[in-house]
């Protein structure tokens, strides 16, 4: 084997190049992080800054905002739209869009009410049919996109109207169906909280997992003569995360605790993040979003990737619709209308998923929706009319897209 002319003896395989700066330990990790930020790879920073600002502004205007009870309430709102936003992340990764997620969620909630309450279906059957409906709608979008070449923007825009029409048709003249309050699904959507011991235990889990997988990865990398990340960085990361989560759980436990529905949302986020980063499917998603032709030539079935993304998006939208019906205790004509669509898309973008494809993560849905719902919740607490709320949320979305575009330009000029 030819030796690399630039290699320095005694260094591991991936750190052998003499021109490579060796970022070791905590200081190195911080420096690498700063380099990334300067080159336009902002990651979670806009969200963190935004949340701190929101907390300061709204809690000074109305101290109720930061009370544990209000925050638990906020997490309920996050879960429903957040799940829809998770689906949006899938299509955004491909550089596509689904504008009909609001209507899809409304249709799902109408299906739930009509089948379950009016027609006496078992609740599981009604939920399943709503999800299947979502998958079918996603498959239609994908077919229109793959076979006819219809831009997803147009296909889903027409879907927005068609699905809304179907929702109104199903609900008929009554306009809304109330779901009985004593049923498990509605309790799940309104006041089912985790026992405190369980939420504390679960708060320890992410740190433990990071430590465990991190140590395993270090061992394997060292065995393969690759540089292993510094141990101190790993420990600090796990510790900071655990302390932060324990604090959040402790604070929420002062009120009613962590809603089960939010736990479900977080679970879905973690599963999707694993799928995005650690599976061949996820890698193919990023590849198609980055360079469709390159992905096709690499033997990736591009059409199937588009199909999977659209189906996932609409199915998650349907799931979000079912949960929001449970949250509201009714299936109504208003479900899924108004700002649901925009909130779901804005959350993904604010969280750091690029509108231009090939860049993003499942966590962006989680963080973005917390920002959106915090603003929405804070404005509601201030008794502002929805006219002002819409204007402010519209401005926030515009700001998020501006940040995304500027960061993209900066990345291009820094070669990233």
């Amino acid at each position, binding site marked *: 084997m030819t030796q690399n*002319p630039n290699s320095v003896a005694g260094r591991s395989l991936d750190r052998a190049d003499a021109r490579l700066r060796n970022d070791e330990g905590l200081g190195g990790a911080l420096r690498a992080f700063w380099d990334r930020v300067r080159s336009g790879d902002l990651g979670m920073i806009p969200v963190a800054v935004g949340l701190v600002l929101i907390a300061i502004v709204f809690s000074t205007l109305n101290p109720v905002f930061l009370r544990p009870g209000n925050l638990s309430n906020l997490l309920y709102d996050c879960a429903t739209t957040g799940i829809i936003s998770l689906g949006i992340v899938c299509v955004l990764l491909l550089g596509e869009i689904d504008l009909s997620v609001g209507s899809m969620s409304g249709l799902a909630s109408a299906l739930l009410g009509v089948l379950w309450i009016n027609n006496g279906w078992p609740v599981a059957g009604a939920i399943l049919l709503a999800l299947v409906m979502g998958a079918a709608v996603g498959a239609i979008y994908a077919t229109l996109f793959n076979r006819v070449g219809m831009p997803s923007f147009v296909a889903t825009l027409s879907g927005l109207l068609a699905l809304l029409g179907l929702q109104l048709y199903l609900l008929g003249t009554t306009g809304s169906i109330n779901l009985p309050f004593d049923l498990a699904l509605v309790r799940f959507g309104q006041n089912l909280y985790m026992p405190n011991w369980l939420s504390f235990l679960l708060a320890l889990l992410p740190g433990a997992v990071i430590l465990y997988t991190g140590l395993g990865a270090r061992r394997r990398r060292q065995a393969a003569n690759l540089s292993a990340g510094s141990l101190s960085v790993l420990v600090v990361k796990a510790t900071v995360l655990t302390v932060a989560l324990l604090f959040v759980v402790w604070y929420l436990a002062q009120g009613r605790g962590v809603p089960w529905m939010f736990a479900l949302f977080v679970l879905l986020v973690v599963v999707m993040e694993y799928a995005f980063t650690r599976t061949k499917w996820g890698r193919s998603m990023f*590849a198609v979003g980055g360079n469709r032709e390159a992905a096709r030539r690499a033997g990736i079935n591009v059409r199937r990737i588009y199909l999977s993304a659209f189906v996932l998006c609409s199915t998650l939208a349907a799931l979000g619709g079912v949960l929001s019906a449970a949250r509201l205790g009714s299936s109504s004509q208003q479900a899924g209308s108004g700002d649901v669509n925009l909130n779901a898309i804005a959350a993904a973008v604010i969280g750091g998923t690029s509108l231009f494809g*090939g860049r993003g993560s499942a966590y962006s849905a989680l963080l973005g929706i917390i920002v959106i719902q915090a603003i929405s919740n804070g404005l509601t607490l201030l008794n502002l009319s929805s006219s002002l709320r819409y204007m402010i949320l519209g401005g926030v979305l515009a700001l998020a897209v501006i940040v995304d575009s500027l960061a993209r330009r900066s990345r291009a000029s820094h070669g990233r």
Partner: protein
Amino acid sequence: MSDVSLAQAPRRPTRSGPRGEPVISLRNVSKNFGAVSALTDIELDVHAGEVVALVGDNGAGKSTLVKVLAGVHQPSSGTIRFMGREVALGSPSAALDMGIATVFQDLALCENLDVVANIFLGREKDPWQLDEVAMETRSWQLLNELAARIPSVREPVASLSGGQRQTVAIARSLLLEPKLIMLDEPTAALGVAQTAEVLNLIERVRDKGLGVIVISHNMDDVRAVADRIVVLRLGRNNGVFTPADSQHDLIAAITGASENSVSRREGRLAAAQEGLA
């Protein structure tokens, strides 16, 4: 320093001419698109450890020939023998599985993914739990075999220079251990130093015992790296040259006449030189 040892070694140990059975051998290959015959009775041999340059003017059929070998187009007639057996290159994946790798001019890299992800794109290890360590180790192995100048394989490809991207594309094509590798305009749009690096890369691939086909418009690059130069003109073979042959003959074969705009320009310049002297 391997650069020094390369320079001191006999410059071209493999330039002793074709040896043994060719890796790929085309006989009377023709390709028609309706009434247009893009290729007519093409003959081409590429041996192991040999760089064959394919040159010709625009529309000479170079790209069509490469696409036939890559399995994108199927020939209308003629035979292709690969590793001594007659084969049908029915599809790009069939050609790839057989051991014919192609690096297209636009490289087809995903700029948002890192080097490892690009090298293993579509061929990841363990689809349900990607084996990043194994893929990274193999990537370094491939890159080191090419003595490549890639500082880090965990940077997105967007941060790499043109020459480095070419290196990644070539490393990716070597992943499946092909017998023949085709490079379409590998030095187009590269700077002087980067061009030299890519030419080094081509020589290293050749020294690994692969057959190499290079398409290029740049006669200097072709002369620098090729063992044989196959000229196509209007879809037909128009002579085989070695880098030792005169530029004049080569240009004449490419343009199809000894009297052409290139030779007229050279004649005029030479006359001007004499006039000055």
